[in-house]
């Protein structure tokens, strides 16, 4: 009788273990994985010259970056991360007087390779965009979050720096999806809308 009870317990135990394992097995996962949502704050950065400032501290050398250079018309280029840098020779944003106020916690600076970017050029760098931006009427457009609405890019001068932003639909309407400020340490005539 005692042996039968022990057998019953063993069978019950095995059944419970089977159910737990079965419920956790890969077979229970959806057959199709969805793409990771686009993270504006970690996948978009700004650039001054061939140097990307972005809130992503672990980008590996060779990582492809899509650039939107803030010119008229805006230009789309492909580049690659060369490596993290603290050099003001590579990064104008880290020059004396600027570096302390641009190097905010969480922001990493990367040298860009294979990029046709002049030292005085400004713009945006995008890591793993869902597609390559297209330029329509001089403005680069891309649907980052795949919601059927394009995002666009803007940059303008403040009194002492450059304000970069990404907007859904039209620039300077509503709240930006992403924005950043680049302190230049000299005085400019502001061009940003009030």
């Amino acid at each position: 009788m005692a042996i039968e009870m022990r057998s019953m317990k063993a069978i019950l135990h095995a059944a419970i273990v089977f159910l737990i394992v079965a419920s956790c097995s890969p077979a229970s996962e959806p057959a199709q994985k969805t793409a990771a949502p686009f993270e504006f704050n970690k996948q978009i950065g700004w650039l001054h010259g061939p140097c990307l400032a972005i809130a992503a501290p672990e980008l590996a050398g060779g990582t492809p970056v899509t650039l939107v250079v803030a010119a008229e018309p805006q230009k789309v280029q492909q580049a690659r991360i060369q490596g993290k840098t603290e050099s003001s020779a590579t990064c104008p944003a880290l020059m004396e007087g600027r570096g302390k106020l641009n190097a905010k916690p969480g922001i990493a600076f990367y040298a860009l390779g294979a990029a046709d970017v002049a030292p005085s050029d400004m713009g945006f760098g995008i890591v793993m965009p869902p597609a390559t931006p297209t330029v329509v009427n001089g403005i680069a457009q891309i649907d980052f979050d795949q919601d059927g609405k394009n995002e666009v890019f803007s940059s303008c001068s403040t009194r002492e720096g450059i304000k970069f932003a990404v907007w859904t639909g039209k620039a300077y309407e509503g709240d930006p999806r992403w924005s950043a400020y680049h302190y230049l340490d000299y005085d400019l005539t502001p061009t940003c809308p009030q």
Partner: protein
Amino acid sequence: MMPKTKSGIFWVTWANAHAKNSTSVEDLVEPFKANVKAFIKALQDAGAKVDVGTTTRSDKRAYLFHWCWKIGLGKAKASDATAMAGVDIEWDHGDAEKSKKGAKEMIDGFGLAVPSASTNPPALNTNHTPGKAIDMDITWTGTIKIKKKDRTEESVAFMADVNKNTKLHTVGASYEVKKLTTDAPHWSHDGH
């Protein structure tokens, strides 16, 4: 009379040695200097960390920035440049392309930005030139109580966007140190 030195990378090196901006509060002018010192002390007494950036800007440096930007980007002819005492630069190389190239070397060497569609060069005169503005980074954790000039206390929560921290602006204004709300580090005697 010493011959003038043509525009080019020489002037970047020269400016970095002889026309530097200041990062010292002591170089501000009164009464703004005393006001800034009192504001910074109130911030530090409350537990905030204050990193001072630029205080006064060299007018000679601003002059070099202004004209190299205009000439290098083809917004002005080299012959249009005004002279400045103490800066013996020859903007005109006797050839328009060479003059532009010399100025462009300076744009790159100074790390000047060329915002799209901008027709405005770096400014010649601002509140930083006479010592009436300061750029500084102010950080703390959580909420702190900062004494205003009238000794009353204001509870101020940290905000990553200092331009939106109106309570902090109010405290600064009590010391006549006013926030410019477009540029995170910038405070001045008149908010510009």
